[in-house]
């Protein structure tokens, strides 16, 4: 189980990296490598060129400001997870990061790398969708910001162009008084989600739902916002009936395909449960 041969380059600037990407359509960015290298070892991926970005200055930052958390392309999962400013600005990141593989993987793997890998069952893409975040890309024609819902196209496919590199991810801070929850089920600790649901919710003075975001992973070909369920919950007093209706609506909105770890029927049943639990837990945390 050894990787096939590639051309290795370690640029010193984003511009240089983008130039190297443009030169070779088979090139891939190497950041933490925790998804890419296993795929290469199994020869499921054989990039012709690896562009190692670890020596590019200014990509390892985690900054909080302007209502958002900015995570540089070389910031590791574990650094984001342990960052107290991140936890204060939006605790749903830490809650979700605890489910990303295991600590030695999180020590190396990067949040932006996980977003670019875009596994449909992965936690961080779903968190980007849930929080309404975005990614900043640099390309040969300059930069652009891509909103989460536009970025994720399909399992392991994003709208990043071949000559573009994601340099930063933006996760909006939690709205004031908001409650949050991240509910995931795996058969084994640290594995990709069989299904997961995230919720961010605020309540008005009367206790009814003022704003709500619900998102899911593992149940579709990409991370999803659950708009129909959100509509049911908007303005709701969170009765058991409303929460159940939201769970059912969430289920109706996902394909929840069967695989070796879960039948389609079980995955839907599980997902409805996780959505309910996420809403209940977020509501309990909301002020």
């Amino acid at each position, binding site marked *: 189980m050894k990787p096939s041969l590639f051309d290795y380059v370690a640029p010193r600037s984003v511009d240089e990296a983008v130039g190297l990407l443009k030169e070779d359509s088979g090139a891939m960015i190497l950041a933490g490598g925790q998804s890419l290298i*296993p795929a290469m070892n199994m020869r499921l991926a054989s990039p012709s060129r*690896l562009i190692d970005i670890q020596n590019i200055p200014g990509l390892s930052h985690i900054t909080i400001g302007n209502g958002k958390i900015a995570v540089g392309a070389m910031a590791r999962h574990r650094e984001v997870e342990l960052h107290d400013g991140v936890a204060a600005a939006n605790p749903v990141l830490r809650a979700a990061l605890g489910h990303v593989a295991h600590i*030695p993987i999180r020590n190396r793997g990067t949040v932006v790398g996980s977003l670019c890998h875009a596994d449909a069952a992965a936690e961080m893409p779903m968190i980007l969708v849930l929080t309404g975040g975005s990614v900043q890309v640099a390309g040969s024609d300059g930069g652009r910001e891509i909103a989460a819902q536009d970025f994720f196209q399909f399992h392991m496919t994003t709208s990043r162009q071949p000559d573009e590199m994601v340099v930063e991810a933006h996760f909006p801070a939690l709205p004031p008084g908001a409650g949050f929850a991240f509910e995931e089920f795996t058969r084994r600790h640290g594995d990709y989600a069989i299904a997961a649901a995230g919720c961010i919710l605020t309540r008005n003075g009367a206790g009814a739902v003022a704003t709500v975001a619900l998102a899911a992973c593992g149940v579709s070909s990409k991370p999803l916002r659950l708009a129909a369920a959100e509509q049911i919950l908007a303005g709701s007093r969170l009765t058991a009936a409303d929460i159940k209706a939201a769970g059912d609506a969430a289920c109706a909105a996902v394909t929840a395909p069967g695989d070796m770890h879960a039948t389609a029927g079980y995955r839907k049943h599980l997902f409805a449960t996780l959505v309910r639990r996420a809403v209940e837990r977020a509501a309990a945390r909301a002020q």
Partner: protein
Amino acid sequence: MARGKIKPKLPQSSDDPRVSVKLTVNGEEVTREVSVRMLLSDFLRHELGLTGTHVGCEHGICGACTIVMDGKAARSCLTFAVQASGREIRTIESLADPDGTLHPLQQAFQDCHGLQCGYCTPGMIMNILSHLESDTEIDLSDAGVREILAGNLCRCTGYQNIISAVRRAADHMAPKAGQE
């Protein structure tokens, strides 16, 4: 290959492009010219002869190849040697004293029968060590220790004795009152 027959001419090395890798391993600076695709696990084992780091799956699940890189546990099978340039690596070989006296964590594994075949053990120990030596306080509850161990597969022990070993080592390694 019978005696008296001319030995066949066989290749000595691959055509892979080489790259210079310079890093610190167990406190010693090393420089080697290796293939760009050489995994750090193979580099440590076969270039440096540090065969204590084992290889169990080469896709990041089993943790047998875990080493400590810049103070943090990492999978050496999911890192190219070239990526480790300029970094500080610690492997299992760095733990015991030169006279062979075991590190308290190693000793705890023996005392608690925390190993059987011993294949997963070096990776397991390097992962635990990174926690015991970190500034963050570790959770020694059953669930807390299991969480630390998750990410390292052991097929022999059923983990129970490893959990005891972690607690025992944490106890032995904790600064005693009056010290520090």
